């Protein structure tokens, strides 16, 4: 009896042992799996991704080949207020991933000492396809674009030479530069090419519109009606799939130009009051609108095209009669514009602020 009991006991003990072993193995493997999810999966996703319905990028990757370590340096620089004169403003201050890389929904974005400039901070998604930069197109290459906000007295107010000194003194950056370029040497070219590596990766290509283009989802009836209206009335300038044709146009905001726009670059009188056509990707997230952020809502924008267009000699001919829109047409167009929201870039691991 005892012996049987003992036998039973030992059998149950053995069973328990086996089960607990199994549990341990299971726990360990799930740990491995969850770790893999946290670290390996985003890494797999890293890389420049151009959908087949996008045109070829303008940026020449041949001269700055995609490199994870250079990207990592660029990502650190993008989020680092050390690059500003008083250590308070980073690139991300005015191009926040939480706001589709535009400003924090303010007309003008404060720089050092709360100084402000005259133009709205635009969303910087899909710059790999942009042939020019800034509202007036004055900058001809993404690699030299950061020089403007870095050195502008009302933005980051710092000199490239001083940024180099500050980075040289940082143990964190010594490591990042060495990993990216093989030596600790800090040059403006290395800084600028690394920032370009990061900015090239800010690609918005996973909105509902994109999913529709790829046949993964369908538009609702209202979205489809809005899309048709958009193609009739808006897409001449806000050309698909990047939703800008990168041209400079006067969209009838003013009778006199306190900001002369493209004219400041070309000195050609027929460029007075012209600004770059902005992308409409994530447009509902990136209010306020226009080069100076004068319109806070998308309704105000549509109403401007409906009834507010002002006639001057450089007004875009497409807007001679404005863009007549009924209330229901506006609703439909806004329903379509909502399909351009791309939540992925708001939460993309690789585009977020890195941990030191």
């Amino acid at each position: 009896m005892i012996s049987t009991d003992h036998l039973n006991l030992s059998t149950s003990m053995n069973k328990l042992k086996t089960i607990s072993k199994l549990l341990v193995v299971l726990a360990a493997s799930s740990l491995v799996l969850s770790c893999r999810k946290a670290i390996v999966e985003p890494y797999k996703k890293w890389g420049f991704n151009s959908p087949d319905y996008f045109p070829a990028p303008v940026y020449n990757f041949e001269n700055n080949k995609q490199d994870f370590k250079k990207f990592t340096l660029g990502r650190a620089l993008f989020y680092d207020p050390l690059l500003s004169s008083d250590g308070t403003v980073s690139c991300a201050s005015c191009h926040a991933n939480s706001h589709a890389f535009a400003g924090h929904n303010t007309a003008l974005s404060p720089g050092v000492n709360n100084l402000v400039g005259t133009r709205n901070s635009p969303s910087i998604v899909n710059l790999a396809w942009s042939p020019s930069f800034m509202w007036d197109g004055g900058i001809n290459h993404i690699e030299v674009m950061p020089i403007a906000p870095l050195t502008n007295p009302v933005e980051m107010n710092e000199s490239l030479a001083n940024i180099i000194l500050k980075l040289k003194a940082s143990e964190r950056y010594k490591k990042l530069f060495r990993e990216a370029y093989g030596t600790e040497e800090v040059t403006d070219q290395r800084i600028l090419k690394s920032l370009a590596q990061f900015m090239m990766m800010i690609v918005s290509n996973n909105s509902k519109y994109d999913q529709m283009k790829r046949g993964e989802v369908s538009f609702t009836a209202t979205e489809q009606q809005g899309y048709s209206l958009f193609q009739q009335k808006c897409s001449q300038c806000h050309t698909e799939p990047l939703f800008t044709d990168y041209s400079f146009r006067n969209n009838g905001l003013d009778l006199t130009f306190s900001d002369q726009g493209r004219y400041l670059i070309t000195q050609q009188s027929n460029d007075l009051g012209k600004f770059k056509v902005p992308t409409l990707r994530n447009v509902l997230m990136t209010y306020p609108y226009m080069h100076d952020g004068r319109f806070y809502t998308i309704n105000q924008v549509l109403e401007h095209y409906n009834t507010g267009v002002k006639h001057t000699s450089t007004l875009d001919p497409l807007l001679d009669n404005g863009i007549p829109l009924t209330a229901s047409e506006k609703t439909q167009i806004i329903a379509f514009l909502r399909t351009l929201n791309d939540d992925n870039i708001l939460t993309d691991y690789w585009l977020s602020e890195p941990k030191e």
Partner: protein
Amino acid sequence: MKNTFKLGVTALVLTIAVACKKEKIEPTTPTTGTDVVTLKIEHTWQDSLEFALNTDLVNPLTGDSLNFTTFKYYISNIRLKKNDGTWWTQPNSYFLLDLANGTTPSVQLTGVPYGEYTDVEYVLGVDSTRNVSGAQDGALSPSLGMFWSWNSGYIMLKAEGLSPDASMGGSFAYHLGGFSGSNNVVTTKSHTFVGNSLSVTGNGNCQIHLSAAPQTLWQTAGSVSMNSMIHMPGSGAKTMADDFYGSFEFEHIHE
């Protein structure tokens, strides 16, 4: 074993040392090889005086009193013509001449093959390619303060200073550049050595001397009282750059 190895190494080093020495000592005239040629640009004022920064000068063309605090400009794409008609082109040939470091700046042309040279060619300014190709390094680093941040392109010449005659509160600042269309200031210059030829034979003393005259900036533009500030490409920048670039002359060669 160790000793044998040491001996071997010593022998090898000796052989190399002897080989190197041999090459240097032998006074034969080699037919192939390269040497350094120095290009010097002397800056003159009123054709005879030496130009100087932080010095009171009077412009003979306009009568303006001028005291330069900054004078720098780019020279690039330097080439030398051989007597057989072929060209030697210096690779990655970009130099920022800063007259704060002396008013007869020089540029070292390294790797010039031995031969007889009859002409020099160079570009004043920075070619359009380098203005549109993103972040550059070396003499073209944007951190040198010779790149417009808001309207991409190189400031190809920067002349700043003080003048009681200036329209802008006693100072002048000319930032001249522009690489496209009618605003293009980039100028290719070439000079023949007027019947002489520069023999590059490896003596290390070859020099080409040029001269330039800063007062010619105002040759067409007129007095600083008319316009004492230019900070973007345009007709004003083009006029001043063209006039100054036009003042470059060949002086002589040395061997």
